[in-house]
Each structure stands twice: as structure tokens, then as C-alpha cells.
């Protein structure tokens, strides 16, 4: 059976989303750690945009979308955060203080919790797909 693989496309997508969410968790933790550092600018990863550009499949490339995705996931992702400079539009990171620090503690904590919940959601979904796989392996026996 050609093209049979253990993990399907949606599981690969879940892995990707957890990796991006994990990187975002790191970035937001670093923002909170630097909430009192003069001149520090908040950083963030745009989850939706990152997923969109990463998942955009090249129709001319060889292989099915699962194979393309497999190649993508096998190497480290290059996740560069956006640094929010003063006066940037689309800045959801709060007001700038006089010392040049742009981190708002409440906003960062809210973003961090939202991100952590989304991470757990992906994790739960992934665990469910594993459970159904285990069900199939056990030929339907519990």
C-alpha cells in the first residue's frame, strides 16, 4: 500500500501548531521577564500568519501534501518574532513607558494564557487522534 503512513495531515498540522505555540510561549515569557528592563521592546510571533505561510503548499513540488509536510517538520522551523517598535500600527502590546520599555504586564499575561490554552487544545486533539490509532491497532478491543 503506497502512501500509507502512521500520521495523517491533520496530525502533522497539530504538531506544527504546537511547535509554533511553544515558540510563542517562549517569546512571551521573555517579554514578561523583561518587563522592568529599560529600553526592552516586546516581541511576538503572529501565529496565524506563520501557520499560513508554512502550510502553503507548493503544487509543483514532488510528493503529496503529507510528504511535503513531513519534510517540513523534519527540520527546525525558522520562527522569527516581530519586535514591536514605538508607534507601530497593529500594536496590541500596550503603552510605552518613559524608560523606553513597551511591555504591559497584564497584556502579556493575557496573551500568554491564551496561547497556553490553545497549546493545550492542540495537545488534547493530538492525544485523541493517538487514542483512535491505538483503538485501530488493538482491532477495536479496549
Amino acid at each position, binding site marked *: 500500500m503506497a502512501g500509507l503512513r502512521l500520521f495523517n495531515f491533520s496530525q502533522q498540522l497539530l504538531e506544527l501548531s504546537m*511547535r509554533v505555540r*511553544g*515558540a510563542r*510561549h*517562549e*517569546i*512571551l*515569557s*521573555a517579554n*514578561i*521577564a*523583561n*518587563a*522592568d*528592563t*529599560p529600553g*526592552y521592546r516586546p*516581541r511576538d*510571533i503572529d501565529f496565524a500568519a506563520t501557520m499560513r505561510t508554512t502550510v502553503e503548499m507548493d503544487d509543483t513540488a514532488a510528493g503529496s501534501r503529507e510528504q511535503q509536510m513531513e519534510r517540513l517538520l523534519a527540520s*527546525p*522551523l*525558522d*520562527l*522569527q*518574532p516581530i*519586535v514591536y517598535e514605538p508607534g507601530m500600527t497593529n500594536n496590541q502590546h500596550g503603552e510605552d513607558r518613559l524608560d523606553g520599555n513597551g511591555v504591559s*504586564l497584564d497584556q*502579556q*499575561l493575557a496573551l*500568554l*494564557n491564551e496561547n*497556553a490554552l490553545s*497549546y*493545550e487544545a492542540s*495537545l488534547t486533539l*493530538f*492525544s485523541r487522534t*493517538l*487514542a483512535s490509532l*491505538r483503538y485501530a491497532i488493538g482491532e477495536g478491543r479496549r
Partner: protein
Amino acid sequence: MDLFKMFAISGAAMSAQRSRMSVISGNLANTETTRTPEGGPYRRRDVIFQTTPLGGEFPDLLADTMLDRSEGLLSVEVAGIKQSSRAPRKIFDPNHPDANPEGYVLLPDINVMEEMVDLLSAVRSYEANLTVYNATKGLVRRLLEIGNAP
């Protein structure tokens, strides 16, 4: 996602806030101190925070080959403790043992209210980092449970 890097960031931040708290308690303890080893009244001290790239030997080697890259991950450290240049308060008290010939005593210019507000702000920042630490711990715990039979 490098799990232990995240704990290191929150840990460094908590340690930095703790140093800030010790410096503030030092200031509060010395509001009336007129004698110091360097002479003259105590001078108010202030911590300086600076960003620092996360360092580590083995994790970095590993990160180059295996882990997702995201540049600009900065931790925090205490760059130094600065003495304030504020002029001391002058109080007229000729009976004080440290009074100068004109009868004035030089006391540290420490505003207790200001120190208390700074202390509260340090405690809040510490708590925020503790919250992050616990959130990370929760995520890692869930991650380790992946594939466990429900």
C-alpha cells in the same frame, strides 16, 4: 520549544526581582543611617536590569541542529547596583553625634513612600514571572502525558 530554556528565563527574572527587593529593603533599613564605611550618610541604591542572551553549552549545540529557531529570545540579569546621586537631607540637630560644626546632620534622602511603591512593583513582577513559570510547568506536564492511555 526548548522547555528548560523557558524555565531558565522565568527563573532569571525572579532572581533579578529578588535582588531588586533586597536592595529596596536595604534602602528602607537605612533611612536614618549617618555612618557608612565610605563616610557620610547612606546613599540610596538602585538596581539596573539589562537584557542578556540565553547561554548554555549543550542545549545550544542541540538547538542548532534540532530545535526550532527563534532569534531575539532575551533573558534578564542585574547589570549592577547604582548609588543614587541625590543630595542628602539636612536636618538641624546640634545634639546629634554626627552633626557638623554648623549643627546640621546629613541624612540619606530616602523617600519611604517611593521605596514602598517600588517594592510593590517588584513583588508584582515577581508574581507575574511565577505565574509564567507555573503555566510553563503545566504545559510541560501535559506534554509528557501525551500518548498515555486515557
